[in-house]
């Protein structure tokens, strides 16, 4: 029974090669974006449009996710802590969970759905309808016209949305703690302050910047590789969403060993 093993190795080898290809292409795309920013080929108007779509229009859904995250953490924390630990620990728990993990991660997942999928489908449609070819045939650079504004807007928007999610999540958790176990605002904030490191905030924002770069870079990259009609667009969008979610979870797992010792 050598064959299955061989087949397995071949598969691993192939996915390794595919991964390297993707990684190389992602690097190139980020580089091309930097070059078009440096050479001032990106139009401010395009960036502003994307900032509006990614930032302003994401506020409602980010509000809802952050509220729920704060409420759930607060309730579950309250349930676990109630007898054994001092109640103000709940303030620590909610704030740390929201700032370090929940706000960046959930906001990123929401943006994958709202922005990533949209970018891949949009660019995929432009590929299969030959609009990307048309840009090139007219001597225009699709990277600086289409890719760069989305990538720049992603990097700028994500930390702002995460900051917004932090505020909402913490406040929702604080209200819930009061409602649920009668933990007052003062005590909650006392607990939050007791174990607070400014580094945590930086850590959360660093994550959000990386997510904010990866989501548009991956979605643009996948969109530009779309083949084969409307069906291809659907297929590629699904693939891109999987790719983005996996990357985000992997990056998220890499953060503690790198930035929290």
């Amino acid at each position, binding site marked *: 029974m050598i064959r299955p093993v061989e087949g397995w190795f071949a598969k691993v080898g192939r996915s390794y090669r595919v991964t390297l290809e993707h990684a190389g292409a992602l690097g190139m795309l980020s580089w091309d974006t930097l070059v078009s920013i440096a050479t001032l080929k990106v139009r401010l108007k395009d960036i502003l449009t994307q900032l509006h779509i990614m930032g302003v229009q994401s506020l409602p859904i980010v509000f809802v996710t952050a509220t729920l995250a704060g409420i759930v953490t607060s309730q579950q924390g309250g349930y676990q802590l109630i007898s054994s630990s001092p109640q103000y620990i709940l303030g620590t728990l909610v704030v740390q969970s929201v700032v370090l993990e929940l706000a960046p991660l959930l906001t990123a997942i929401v943006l994958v759905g709202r922005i990533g999928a949209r970018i891949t489908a949009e660019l995929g449609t432009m590929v299969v309808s*030959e609009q990307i070819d048309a840009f*090139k*045939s007219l*001597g225009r650079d699709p990277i600086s016209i289409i890719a760069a504004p989305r990538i720049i807007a992603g990097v700028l928007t994500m930390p702002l949305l995460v900051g917004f999610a932090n505020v909402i999540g913490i406040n929702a958790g604080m209200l819930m703690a009061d409602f649920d176990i009668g933990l007052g605002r003062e005590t909650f904030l006392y607990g939050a302050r007791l174990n607070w490191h400014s580094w945590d905030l930086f850590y959360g924002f660093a994550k959000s910047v990386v997510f904010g770069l990866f989501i548009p870079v991956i979605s643009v990259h996948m969109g530009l590789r779309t083949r084969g009609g409307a069906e291809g667009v659907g297929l590629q969008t699904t693939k891109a969403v999987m790719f983005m979610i996996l990357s985000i979870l992997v990056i998220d797992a890499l953060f503690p060993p790198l930035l929290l010792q």
Partner: protein
Amino acid sequence: MISYKNIHKAFDIPVLTGVDLTVETGEMFALFGPSGTGKSVLMKTTLSLVVPDLGDVEVDGLSVYEGPSSNLEKIRRKIGYVFQHAALFDSLNVYENVSMGLPEDEISRLTTAELSRRVWETLEIVNLEPREILSKLPSELSGGMKKRVGIARAIVGRPEILLWDEPTTGLDPINTAAVERLIKRLSTELEVTSLLVTHDVEGGLQMCDRVAMLSGGTLRFVGTPQEFKDSPDTVVRAFVDRAAAIAALDMAVV
């Protein structure tokens, strides 16, 4: 003049396996072939929209793949490309779409009034009423109108060479006839070189000085329309007969 030299291109399977073809300056040239044989791929190698695995393209003596990269920029200015499904930019209106056909430096050189006049005139050339459609988005246009806007975008920069990828496919007979007249007129009035990929064999034979047929990765036939009709090659014969049958069917439906 466009010279394709030994063009090879494979995707998952080989598509082009050594295509040599020269389209002379001022010529109207039609390229036939069953669908999926690589006609679009060949045409796209002219502007490096598809990069061949092997071979080179020369446009007026400028090499696309073996020369300096500035060649491509020069070549792009010489060539207007009419895409099969028009490939209009979804988010831009007709005015913006057509003006994209001009190089960036030319746009910044023109005043708004000059640019506007240029777009206006070009839309009139393709028999569109500028006043009615300038501010429309592509999604608000019919198929025939989209094609014409696509043509307008390709010719607004006054190219010396036009590449037409199935400009009449999917159009009704009236629009087909109109677009064919337009191609003919542009080719004679503007004295451009035209390379035309088309399913409409009858139309292509009528309009063009020379024709070729792509089949099995290489050119199966290159010659005049008369030679094409008289060709003893069974593959060419089968193609001509099938095209005639389809044309007859079209007529019957109408």
